[in-house]
């Protein structure tokens, strides 16, 4: 994949806007549907917030890198890399979506969104880094 955007910052909430903007600017060039653009933004936000909240627990925030490109003219691929604790976010079981209000946990939905809005997401641990690849279809409406 040839990266059309490539941004590295400290993994802090302050930088979330800059990181998401880099994806948004690529997505705007190749996605016509406003709804689909928001899906892309949602995938990027959830994946980044997950890294910001959990990757560097107990220590100073390390770096997060986000790259974005187009694959086979059909996919917008977001790749997120951090050097935090090993964590395969895709292995997290889905939340119970039918639980009543009082029993619904307040977490876990972000990862669920990330999985639902991408096709064939891949996690790998390589050279002490977590690498998460999130392909979003350019054309398709979300499979509901």
């Amino acid at each position: 994949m040839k990266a059309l955007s490539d941004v590295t910052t400290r993994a802090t909430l302050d930088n979330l806007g800059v990181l998401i903007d880099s994806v948004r600017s690529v997505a705007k060039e190749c996605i016509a549907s406003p709804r689909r653009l928001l899906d892309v933004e949602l995938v990027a936000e959830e994946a980044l917030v997950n890294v910001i909240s959990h990757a560097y627990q107990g220590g100073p925030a390390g770096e997060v890198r986000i790259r974005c490109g187009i694959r086979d003219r059909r996919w917008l691929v977001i790749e997120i890399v951090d050097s935090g604790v090993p964590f395969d976010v895709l292995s997290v079981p889905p939340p119970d979506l039918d639980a009543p209000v009082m029993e619904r946990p307040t977490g876990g939905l972000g990862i669920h969104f990330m999985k639902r809005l991408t096709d064939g997401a891949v996690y790998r641990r390589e050279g002490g880094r977590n690498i998460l690849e999130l392909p979003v279809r350019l054309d398709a409406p979300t499979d509901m």
Partner: protein
Amino acid sequence: MKVETKKENEVTVATVIGRMDALTTSEVERTLMSLLDQGEMKLLIDLDGLDYISSAGLRTLLATAKRMKQRSGIMAFANLKGHAKEVFEISGFYSLFTVYDSVESALEQLGR
């Protein structure tokens, strides 16, 4: 991002305008919690002006709903559409909460 509130009979209508993401949702949370602190028992959240919502926004809505439930209050939504509707559907929130087509129809039901 802002929240406008008004009272219609016993129903408090909170209209969310803008985005509820990881950076902005705390502002909405503050407003909703202060409404709860004032003892409101019927809360209608109007999402007509909501442009974007992520799991951070849903967490705020769920936390508000839990507090409302604890005191046997009622919380419902109106004007769910587009992206916000999709997010409600994927998260199961759409079947978890009562969602009205409009503020008017909600007030008709809740104001009784």
